[in-house]
């Protein structure tokens, strides 16, 4: 599909993507340093001394990141050189913040400790990522089973609503759990959905984009080609009803819209989809009171009624207080009171970052996410194969959109949702899913390099 000649493509691609593994190694050193520095600052500020405990929160993720780097050197030497350091940076900062919140929790006699688990889960997630890079030598195998991926995604999405194993936490039914172990299947489902959409759209994109009549300034597809979008709209509303979570619904529908738009180039899908999404959300806010409450809390968080209501705006208002306390340069890690924000270690970790690292730190973190997403889009832009392009745009967009929906909820820009902050929030499903996304993107970028070389 690319009509750029091979000879011009090679230098363009090499210029566009820093692929050097040595470059990646240097960055990893820096990031490991930032990770250690953040942990040291936490200890100095909260405990007034440094202890060897720090090593536990630093060494395992740092070593595992080095292992991933080694695997890339061996098996994906042409992969993007920025993604691994950026993802590890976010992961490391998240560990430092969770450790800091644990220390505050311990100081007031609490027992809910997350940092130890987060360290092992991060290592596990990175090992899974390394395994994906190692064991999936060619991501194009994924193209063969789009419907299987779609079916699995649907199964995973429905799972939390199943009796016995389904769990509702904070009003959202996003978890399945057996005993102590709980798992958020939606996180894995987003990868499967991206694979499904990419496979499906690659085969259908000509039909969806070419045929149709012109209405006003847009090309309107045939009614039967509207099927998929309507089906998916209904499905995401189903998710909203079953899982009681607006964020998840927005995430999947947004992923779908971006992928169908990329595949077809038709703005019609985006316009119609956004209209349907907003309409659906508004109707839901009227019909379902758990959605309505979230809307109320969002529209007027400071009213006493919403503030005091169960599931009201207390958490959001505390998050805003925390961020306001951080001001421009922040209180420094360990210097603020992020422990006052409920769920600061997971959903609201960005508010905790905003408080202790300030607006400057929050900008930096958001910029790191944005850079990470840009790298993904870069891969999409430069890959010669349509399936790979669609898959990488879907995977990178889903990280960007999820981060946007979560942050917008934390800042009061959108109603609160149950999505997690990629790479930072405490929680294994999210870590594993997002590291697998990184692994897939790395694999795709390596393959584009190989194509260019071949």
């Amino acid at each position: 599909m690319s009509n750029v000649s091979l000879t011009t493509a090679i230098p363009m691609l090499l210029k566009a993507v820093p692929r050097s593994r040595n470059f990646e190694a240097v960055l990893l050193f820096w990031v490991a340093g930032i990770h250690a520095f953040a942990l040291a600052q936490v200890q100095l500020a909260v405990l007034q001394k440094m202890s060897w405990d720090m090593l536990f929160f630093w060494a395992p993720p740092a070593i595992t990141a080095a292992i991933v780097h080694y695997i890339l050197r061996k098996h994906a030497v042409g992969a993007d050189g920025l993604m691994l350091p950026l993802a590890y940076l976010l992961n490391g900062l998240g560990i430092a913040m969770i450790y800091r919140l644990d220390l505050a929790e311990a100081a007031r006699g609490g027992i809910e400790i997350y940092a130890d688990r987060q360290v092992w889960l991060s290592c596990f997630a990175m090992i899974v990522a390394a395994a994906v890079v190692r064991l999936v030598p060619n991501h194009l195998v994924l193209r063969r089973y789009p419907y299987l991926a779609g079916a699995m995604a649907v199964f995973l999405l429905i799972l939390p609503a199943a009796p016995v194993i389904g769990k509702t936490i904070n009003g959202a039914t996003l978890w399945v759990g057996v005993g102590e172990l709980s798992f958020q299947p939606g996180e894995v489902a987003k990868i499967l959905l991206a694979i499904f959409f990419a496979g499906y759209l690659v085969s259908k994109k000509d039909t969806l984009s070419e045929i149709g009549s012109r209405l006003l300034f847009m090309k309107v597809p045939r009614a039967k080609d509207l099927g998929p979008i309507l089906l998916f709209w209904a499905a995401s509303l189903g998710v909203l009803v079953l899982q009681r979570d607006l964020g998840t619904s927005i995430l999947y529908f947004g992923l779908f819209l971006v992928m169908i738009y990329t595949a077809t180039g038709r703005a019609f899908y985006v316009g119609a989809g956004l209209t349907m999404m907003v309409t659906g959300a508004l109707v839901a806010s009227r019909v379902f009171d758990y959605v309505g409450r979230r809307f109320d809390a969002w529209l007027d968080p400071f009213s006493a009624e919403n503030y005091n209501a169960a599931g009201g705006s207390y958490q959001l208002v505390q998050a805003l207080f925390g961020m306001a306390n951080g001001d421009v340069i922040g209180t420094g890690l360990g210097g603020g009171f992020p422990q006052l924000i409920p769920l600061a270690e997971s959903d609201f970790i960005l508010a905790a970052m905003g408080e202790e690292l300030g607006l400057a730190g929050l900008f930096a973190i958001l910029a790191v996410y944005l850079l990470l997403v840009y790298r993904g889009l870069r891969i999409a832009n430069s890959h010669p194969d349509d399936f790979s392009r669609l898959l990488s745009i879907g995977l990178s967009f889903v990280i960007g959109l999820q981060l946007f929906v979560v942050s917008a909820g934390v800042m009061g820009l959108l109603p609160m949702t149950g999505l997690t902050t990629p790479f930072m929030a405490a929680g294994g499903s999210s870590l594993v899913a997002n590291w697998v996304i990184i692994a897939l993107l790395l694999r795709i970028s390596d393959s584009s390099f190989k194509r260019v070389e071949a």
Partner: protein
Amino acid sequence: MNKQVRRVGLALTAMFLALFAMASSIQVLRSGDLYKDSRNVRASYETYKTQRGAILVDGVPVVESVPVNDAYRFNREYESVLYSPVIGYFSLFSGAAGIEYEMNSYLSGQSSAQFFEQINALLDGKPVTGAAVELTIDPDVQRAAWDALGNRKGAVVAIEPATGRILAMVSKPTFDANLLAAHLYGPVTDADKTYIEDEDDPLINRAIAGDLYHPGSTFKLVVAAAALESGQYTATSELENLQRYRLPRTFSFVENSSGKTCGPGETVTLEFALIKSCNVPFAMLAVALGEQRIRAQAELMGFGSELVIPLPVTPSIYPENLEDSQVALTGFGQFDVRVSPLQMAMVSASIANQGVLMRPQLVDLIVASNLNVLSQPEPEVFSSPMSKLTAGFLTRMMVDSVNSGAASKAQIEGVAVAGKTGTAENGINDPYTLWFTGFAPAEAPRVAVAVVVEDGGGAGQNGTGNQIAAPIARLVIEAVLKK
């Protein structure tokens, strides 16, 4: 497809820009309002998190922030209720008062004088440590005043006349600041509620900030000073000596407390009238001097001034636009003359310091945690309300008043004590307010005191300033002289 990828990239950029904008709005534009929201406990946590400076008396901490293992990190511990009216309290849930409130910027390390410490703290990541505030209070004098006042409601103030340093300031009943500074919401608010609902207002420092009192006969010092300063009177000027004085244009009469004339004879000297504290001559003298002269004298001595020592002092009042009958009543400190105990101590101090009134001061020194002196208030002249000669005359009269007159209970063997009592009426059946103000030793004064006892010291209308207030003052003066 590249066009679409670029557009998706632009859409994502726009979404992130929205986040940047929202974060800027929260953390910069709205941060002040959010920080001040009453539901935001961070502000109070923040002040608690810095190790607040101690408050010292004679070099020894009487209030300290002690590290504890909870979210507030430090517990404010008050050594004794003796200092409660002066020091006040610093509470998470009930605000702050007293020195704790007025000196908060220093104690919490946030004052502009501690700028470099704040920068250092920012660099090494440790919170700023607050500065210590040393008070002028002398612990022995404070203890003597506290003990002497006993269980009575009232206040005692002792000032060093030459410097204005406040040596003692007691107000009773008072409160236990430890109850208000605890970290548990329930008990603290309960204690606060109990104190607020208490009719005796234990949270109020009566020495400076109570409802003000009628000064009674102690105000005669002001009237006498006005007379001497007018140039029309001397200590031996003869005043008419009536048994009863009909207030101008009324059918009411003023009598001396004895009910008789002020000694034998047609006339009485100003000196004698003050020593014996006769009301009739002073009522007539006040009318003769007129409202303006008396107020001018009173204001030179601090009436009407908003003093900050650095606790704010309720200004004492000499009323305005009076009928002559009312001026007559003010001549012996009745009608709407209202004073704080500190004000009456200042009247004595100005006489003691030969007519120069020093500005009263409670803070001796403010020292940063690195031992830099941040502030050391110098003695400062407040006003010169009378000539040295007038002060000399008044001193002699007050000494005689103690030696042979109405203030005899303040006598100390071998020391010339100058004093003036007062027994102020409050209402037909209400108990009297009992006063003593004076200084000692008369020839080289080291302390000026004012004592007020409310509710007649428990003796209804039978107690007098001499019986109840003067002995308290004596104990305070003795405590100073012992040093």
